[in-house]
């Protein structure tokens, strides 16, 4: 591999030299023709043309070779005695020496010019990349966006495999594969060192990997650890070219960190991290508090049901009513806690629906069963066709969403009114609808009801609840690939809630299972 690289460079050099020789030959041929045609004097000065071209295109070595060949060709073709390298006239010798001197100076100037041009072109590309980088930072949404921007920027500028690790945890948790880059284990170990701030040198360290590649590991910014640690595959570089590369990495990173600092990104990252930690803390708190509350509630509720059926209380109407209050309130509290638990489940680890083939009739009936007590003074009208298709959902999540909707319907409708539950299949969707004859909603309320902690303000004084119910229902249905809608003709005109779920047609295996013995 190393040899191949060297070979590549030699080949390029040879190609330059070869082309130079061709140019010299061409110039010789042209000058020769001109001299024969016109009888003009000799033209060694013309050989400056290939010298300058070679110097600007291929560097100093081909330029010198062009000069030497030019001298030799002049001596051979144009200075008497012709067709011999000997030169008779000492003036001519002086001329040629002068030519060689001019050629060397010119080729040196041209090479330097060429290098400067290259540098300024590179600078221009870098600036353009840097500009793109800062534009991307400006629209970065969160910490990972910023890290991805830094990573991509370095990959573009360096034209190498680059991976960025946000911190110690990121590096130790990583299996080594990042952004399509395989990072060897020795390098990962070094990243952990760097991320924990144990690197003294700001310019990072190089790590040779098993594959023979050399990796550079360094903190993105020596001043702020928020930007993470970057690893760059320098390839099979020799010591000097890897040093060259490191200088370049330094320059690119200096530009990048200057941009980051100018935009106050470090501060923003720190703040975002703190915010997400606060969120995590809050979710953990809700989870553990709800659990701690639920255990004693189970005792309270159980004890209350034992008391309410106790023979000693059979004739104590007032005491019995009190016990019923304890039981009902405990049940309500339990519902609220369950809602909090569901909400924290939704926002912490996300829902993992357990999909299976389910009969919509079963889901509706078991939701009604769960709400039997709450709906005892409402007339429940069922409209479930016998030929509903099966749906592939998590039936428990859909049932819990329905329970929330029933709860809502009961909460916002008068006692004795009717709640209609219907199901129908249409256009590849299963539509479950729950209509009440209750308070209805204004247009503004219809938008707001899906928010977390949203409560109907018009009726806040007469109803209770956390305002989590519909938010939970929405999340549960969304986890099943469905959607919830609420429609109301207006305040006082009742509300119709519809759940739409996809119907997959793989359910039509009826023929197969019909084969009964």
């Amino acid at each position, binding site marked *: 591999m190393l040899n191949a690289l060297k070979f590549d460079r030699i080949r390029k050099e040879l190609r330059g030299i070869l082309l130079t020789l061709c140019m010299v030959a061409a110039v010789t041929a042209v000058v020769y023709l001109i001299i024969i045609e016109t009888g003009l004097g000799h033209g060694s000065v013309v050989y400056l043309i290939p010298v300058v071209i070679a110097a600007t295109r291929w560097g100093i070595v081909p330029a010198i070779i062009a000069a030497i060949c030019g001298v030799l060709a002049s001596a051979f073709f144009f200075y008497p005695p012709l067709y011999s390298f000997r030169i008779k006239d000492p003036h001519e010798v002086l001329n040629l020496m002068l030519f060689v001197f001019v050629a060397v100076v010119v080729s040196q100037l041209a090479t330097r010019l060429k290098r400067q041009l290259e540098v300024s072109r590179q600078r221009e590309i870098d600036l353009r990349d840097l500009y793109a980088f800062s534009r991307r930072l400006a629209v970065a949404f969160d910490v990972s966006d910023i890290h991805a921007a830094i990573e991509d920027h370095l990959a573009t500028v360096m034209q190498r495999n680059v991976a960025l690790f946000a911190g110690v945890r990121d590096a130790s948790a990583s299996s080594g594969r990042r952004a399509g880059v395989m990072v060897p284990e020795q390098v990962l170990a070094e990243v952990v060192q760097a991320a924990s701030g144990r690197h003294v040198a700001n310019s990072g360290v190089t790590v040779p990997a098993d594959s023979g590649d050399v990796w550079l590991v360094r903190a993105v910014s020596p001043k702020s650890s928020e930007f993470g640690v970057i690893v760059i595959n320098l390839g099979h570089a020799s010591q000097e070219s890897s040093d060259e590369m490191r200088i370049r990495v330094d320059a690119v990173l200096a530009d990048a960190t200057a941009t980051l600092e100018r935009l106050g990104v470090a501060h923003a990252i720190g703040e975002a991290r703190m915010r997400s930690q606060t969120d995590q803390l809050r979710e953990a708190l809700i989870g553990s508090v709800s659990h701690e509350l*639920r255990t004693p509630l*189970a005792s309270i509720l159980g004890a209350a049901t*034992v008391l309410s059926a106790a023979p000693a209380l059979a004739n104590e109407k007032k005491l019995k009513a009190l016990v019923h209050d304890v039981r009902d309130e405990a049940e309500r509290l339990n519902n609220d806690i369950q809602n909090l638990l569901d909400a924290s489940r939704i926002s912490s680890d996300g829902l993992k629906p357990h999909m299976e083939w389910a009969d919509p009739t079963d889901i509706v009936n078991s939701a009604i069963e769960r709400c039997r007590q709450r709906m005892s003074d409402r007339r429940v009208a069922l409209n479930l066709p016998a030929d509903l298709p099966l749906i592939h959902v998590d039936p*428990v999540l859909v049932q819990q969403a329905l329970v929330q909707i029933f709860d809502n319907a009961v909460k916002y409708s008068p006692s004795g009114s009717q709640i209609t539950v219907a199901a129908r299949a249409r256009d590849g969707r299963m539509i479950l609808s729950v209509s009440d004859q209750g308070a209805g909603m204004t247009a503004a309320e219809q938008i707001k009801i899906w928010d977390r902690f949203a409560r109907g303000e018009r009726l806040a004084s007469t109803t209770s609840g956390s305002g989590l119910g519909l938010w939970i229902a929405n999340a549960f249905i969304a986890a099943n690939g469905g959607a919830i809608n609420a429609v109301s003709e207006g305040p006082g005109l009742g509300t119709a809630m519809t759940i739409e779920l996809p119907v997959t047609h793989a359910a039509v295996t009826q023929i197969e299972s019909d084969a*009964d013995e």
Partner: protein
Amino acid sequence: MQMSEPSPIVLVVDDEIQIRRFLRTGFELNGFVVHEAGTGAEAIRSATLRPIDLVIVDLGLPDMDGSEVVERIRSWSSVPIIVLSVRSTEAQKVHLLELGADDYVVKPFGMAELLARVRVSLRRQMRAASGEPTVKVGPLTIDLAVRSVMLNDKRLTLTPKEYRLLQVLAQHAGNVVTHQHLLKEVWGSIHVHDTHYLRIFVRKLRQKIEPHPDSPKILVTELGVGYRLAQSGAEAENGAEAPAKSES
């Protein structure tokens, strides 16, 4: 309880003393004899030392998981076991039923609900011991000996698979039977994941046995777990005593 029968003995396994206390009171008021255990080890010891008619196990025990208690007791005894579980853990419920638990009750629960489950399980145990061949669920009578199904004294014609399905449910009358168990018993073990077979057959069966197939009362669904023939606790006791019915 009927005075002629001896009081059933129930072993309550829960680490919360408050839960044990209300369960003890609730059971004693209904004519049961109660033993208590606060840990899994204590429960297993207690179950080996004394004759017990029924075990109630909480899943969260300090020394071992409730499922381990179920598994250990089931390894030598066929005593009915009812598990106290929490909501949203259907997979766990299925697992417990497969380990040999007879039924579960979701915490928090009312005493009436638990008593109904307990009576169903005791009744089933008694029927199994006595070889009683008929199972009555509301208007439905299933005679397992002569393979006949009567609805309001009218004989129903079922296909062999429909009968097999009803038979498995009747053998566990009142208790929940998991999807996997039903599929294995009726269609064979290669179909244990083809829940849709079950859904379609249950629907057809309901058309025949339910007075209102769109709100079934006999063959009821336990979402995410299985089905049960809804034998109420009072019915299981042959209507002997029904003081606290459908409280919760």
